[in-house]
């Protein structure tokens, strides 16, 4: 229940009317931009598609820019959260639910019924919304647009426009500005433009967003993808090697030095959308302990699923090669099991004390993966893996995890579950980075002595649903695998209690009974027993 009483009888929240006239005009401009897209969806025959597409995207971006300038530039710099729990759209009100339904429907059509967006089947020309984007696609890569091109453009537009809004909102905070500039850059350059140019250079190369790392891009080691890379000579081979380096070398080093934030809130596209367009929904993530429990089960299950699925896929096409290649099925499965065992043994050896109860769960998880892989190896034929087809496993993953979880639920439910529900509950990449962040990283959120007043601004603004206050009010640093290091808890803290930093591993996790500021004898008695 909102503490604010709605005195009017209207369905819409009366606060929506509290925006200025300029903001109303800005909303109008943005809506016109969206309306042109709707017209295109219904096959309106625009005289000059390129012009109208420019108008439409320009109006959307312009509307957001105008709205944000009016919202933030007329006020002094500072925290701008007034009314987020009163506004219908950001507090699961009617507007929030409506937006959720629209987004979810869009994702369902995008993933499963692209023909309704106008995708031309069997070589026919595109029509509708997808056809509307043809001019831009021709300009960039010379080919017709696809539903993924349309999605990519809209995604990039959202990150750029709302990224600008976020930068204005935090114009007193350089960490937030640089971080947002970074996700805007990586989305526009790495996810959108570079793959288009790579296609222009060599149109046999599979789509490769260089910043997307396995297991987030779960398809990179699929047969078609690997074949695509290998068939394009040195550049393809280099890209494939870069993919391997990304997950096995680059990622562990950067995560050790900076925590998983280097990826999740500075580079990643999913994170980029969540931090910009999703910013208004960050307070909606559940901080209950029960949600945390669910999170740990779900995300690690997805990770196990993605590891087993990828191994099964690679395994299946290794058989198709003639076995004259050194990487045979036997060698491959031994390498995988060996690698997992080394990781598991190292964790158990170095971190046994820290893990406590979780160690048992980790051991069970490890055993399950190994067992599955061995069963696969000894029962497997080219057709049957785990007694079901490997390709079935792969398409199940693509459907349930790749499409439904990350897209339909992950983004469609922004206004209901908060802006990071995919990152928090489902992303296998986040699980790997988080595992390392919790155990082998210099990153932590430092709590400033005894200064916490338990107000709860930090927990409220945590998009990952971490109850930051629970740590801060105990004077304890926050070292959680799920933390993406967005830094908003630190920004909204009214007493300067939280600081994201990279420091030594020593004393990183520091639970205390009595906080700094009290009797030193009492602190000695209780904190050092």
């Amino acid at each position, binding site marked *: *229940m*909102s*503490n*604010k*009483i709605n*005195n009017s009888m209207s369905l819409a929240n009366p606060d929506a009317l*509290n925006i200025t006239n300029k903001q109303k005009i800005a909303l109008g401009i943005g809506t016109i931009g969206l309306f042109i897209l709707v017209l295109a969806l219904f096959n309106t025959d625009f005289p000059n598609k390129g012009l109208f597409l420019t108008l439409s995207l320009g109006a959307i971006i312009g509307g957001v820019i105008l709205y944000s300038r009016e919202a933030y530039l007329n006020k*002094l710099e*500072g*925290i701008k*959260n*007034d*009314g*987020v*729990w*009163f*506004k219908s759209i950001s507090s699961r009100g009617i507007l929030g639910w409506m937006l959720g339904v629209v987004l979810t429907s869009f994702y369902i059509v995008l993933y499963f019924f692209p023909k309704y967006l106008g995708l031309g089947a069997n070589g026919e020309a595109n029509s509708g919304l997808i056809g509307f984007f043809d001019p831009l696609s021709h300009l960039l890569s010379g080919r017709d647009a696809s539903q993924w091109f349309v999605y990519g453009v809209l995604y990039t537009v959202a990150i750029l426009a709302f990224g600008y809004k976020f930068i204005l909102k935090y114009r*007193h*905070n*350089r*960490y937030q500005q*640089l971080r947002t500039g970074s996700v805007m850059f990586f989305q526009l350059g790495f996810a959108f433009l570079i793959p288009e140019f790579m296609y222009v250079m060599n149109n046999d190369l599979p789509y490769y967003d260089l910043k997307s790392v396995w297991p987030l891009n779960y398809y990179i080691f699929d047969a078609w993808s690997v074949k695509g890379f290998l068939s394009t000579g040195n550049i393809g081979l280099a890209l494939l090697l870069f993919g391997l380096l990304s997950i096995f070398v680059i990622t562990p080093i950067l995560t050790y030095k900076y925590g998983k934030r280097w990826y999740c809130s500075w580079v990643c596209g999913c994170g980029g959308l969540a931090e910009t367009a999703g910013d208004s929904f960050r*307070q909606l993530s559940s901080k209950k*302990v029960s949600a945390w429990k669910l999170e740990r089960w779900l995300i690690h299950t997805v990770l196990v699923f993605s590891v087993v699925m990828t191994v099964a896929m690679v395994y299946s096409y290794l058989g198709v090669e003639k076995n004259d290649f050194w990487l045979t099925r036997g060698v491959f499965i031994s390498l995988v099991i060996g690698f997992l065992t080394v990781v598991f043994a190292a964790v158990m050896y170095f971190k046994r004390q820290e893990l406590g109860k979780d160690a048992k769960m980790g051991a069970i998880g490890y055993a399950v993966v190994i067992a599955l892989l061995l069963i696969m190896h000894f029962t497997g034929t080219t057709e049957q893996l785990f007694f079901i087809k490997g390709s079935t496993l792969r398409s199940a993953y693509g459907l349930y995890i790749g499409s439904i979880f990350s897209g339909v639920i992950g983004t469609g439910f922004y206004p209901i579950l908060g802006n990071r529900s995919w990152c928090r509950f489902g992303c296998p990449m986040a699980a790997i980075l988080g595992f390392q962040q919790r155990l082998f990283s210099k990153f932590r959120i430092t709590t*400033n*002595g*005894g*200064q916490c*007043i*338990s*107000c*709860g*601004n930090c*927990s*409220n603004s945590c998009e990952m649903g971490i109850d930051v*206050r*629970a740590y801060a*009010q105990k004077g304890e640093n926050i070292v959680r695998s799920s933390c993406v290091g967005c*830094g908003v808890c*630190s*920004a*909204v803290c*009214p*007493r*300067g209690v939280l*600081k*994201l*930093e990279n420091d030594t591993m020593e004393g990183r996790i520091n639970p205390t*009974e*009595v*906080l*700094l*500021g*009290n*009797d*030193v*004898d*009492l*602190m000695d*008695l209780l904190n050092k027993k």
Partner: protein
Amino acid sequence: MEHIAIIGNGISGVTLARHIRKNSDKKITIISGETDFFFSRTALMYVYMGHMKFEHTQPYEDWFWKKNRIELKKGFVKQVDTETKTLHFTEGDTLQYDKLVIATGSKPNKFGWPGQDLEGVMGMYHKQDLENLEKHAPNKEVCKRAVIVGGGLIGIEMAEMLNSRSIPVTFLVRENSFWNGVLPSGESEMINRHIKNHHIDLRLSTNLKEIVSDENGKVKSIIIEETGEEIPCNVVGLTAGVAPNIDFIRDSGIDIGRGVKVNRFLETNIPDIYAIGDCAEQHEAIGNRRPIEAVWYTGRMMGEVLAQTICGNKMEYKPGHWFNSAKFLDIEYQTYGWVFSDRNKSEHEQHFHWKHTDDTKCITVAYHKDTNTFLGINTFGIRMRHEVFDRWITENRDMDYVMKNLPEANFDPEFYSHFESEILKAYTNQLQTV
């Protein structure tokens, strides 16, 4: 099993209960008439501003209390019978205790102003005050202007709250500069300007004469003592400090002054009855501290200490170095050690003051005139590390050391501009001109 009854579910009482539970199996009951569950009083303002909902101000989920076997009793204590160790509630029921802890906090001061009990006049302390404000000031159409009386921490918070809903605010401050009984003048004047930049009508050296009623017993306007000016308004916030909330024990035989009198073990004059937090009054002030400390942190510390005593490890309340914090609209404030205002500082206390040209950041460092020993720091708009200053004060560092090592104490977010070299330069220049 010994039964510990705690009256008050604020930070003091709840910290005490948590620590007793950690150390013992005693039966614990927390009594409150205000709310069902513990909430952070300092966060009430954010509920009105829409940053949070009320439930977000509750640091523990509702199952926490049952799981930790801490019983919660909702009700107001009317009378304490210390002979039979019985609490009498306004509803007529009673509760037996073995040990009693009074942790009832504060209530807003009222100084006998005419009209101070009219409808629309309120403090900003209890949850009920928040509900009252929501009723009388839901928006700028219902509340065309609000007047706040009293220039302290709660006053400026209330101004920020009303400002968030675009309600015009007139802010009456008795002193000739905001909170200058506590802050040195350079800081206090910077905050004056910041308040005005937020379009709050700040009236310094201005007192309230009376609050005028309309025909329905509601606030219509206020009249200013000095000028006789009448300011029409719909809400009056009385934020001229707080006093211990202890009316219910006046006849109980428990020794009281302004608050509940306690010794260094937080014991009252009656065995098995203790008092902690805002409502406790030390017989003699501890160091530079006030006998009554109405501060979140000290309430928590008293809870931590008393839990030891109650669990059989008798300990004095011996707080460490002073620290505090607040936020004035957009400017954060932290203090470590002692920095006194121009009015209250002693003869040996010298100040070094630095202010950024943007007028939102400044520091004041206090040191001993003769020994050059560092005494304390106030910092505005720059976050600093509690742990570092606590250590420097313990180590009796001198001013030169502190100024040279200031970067070690910086706690601002990454990529923020740093001002330590500029501060050091100003400090060195000042030494040369003296």
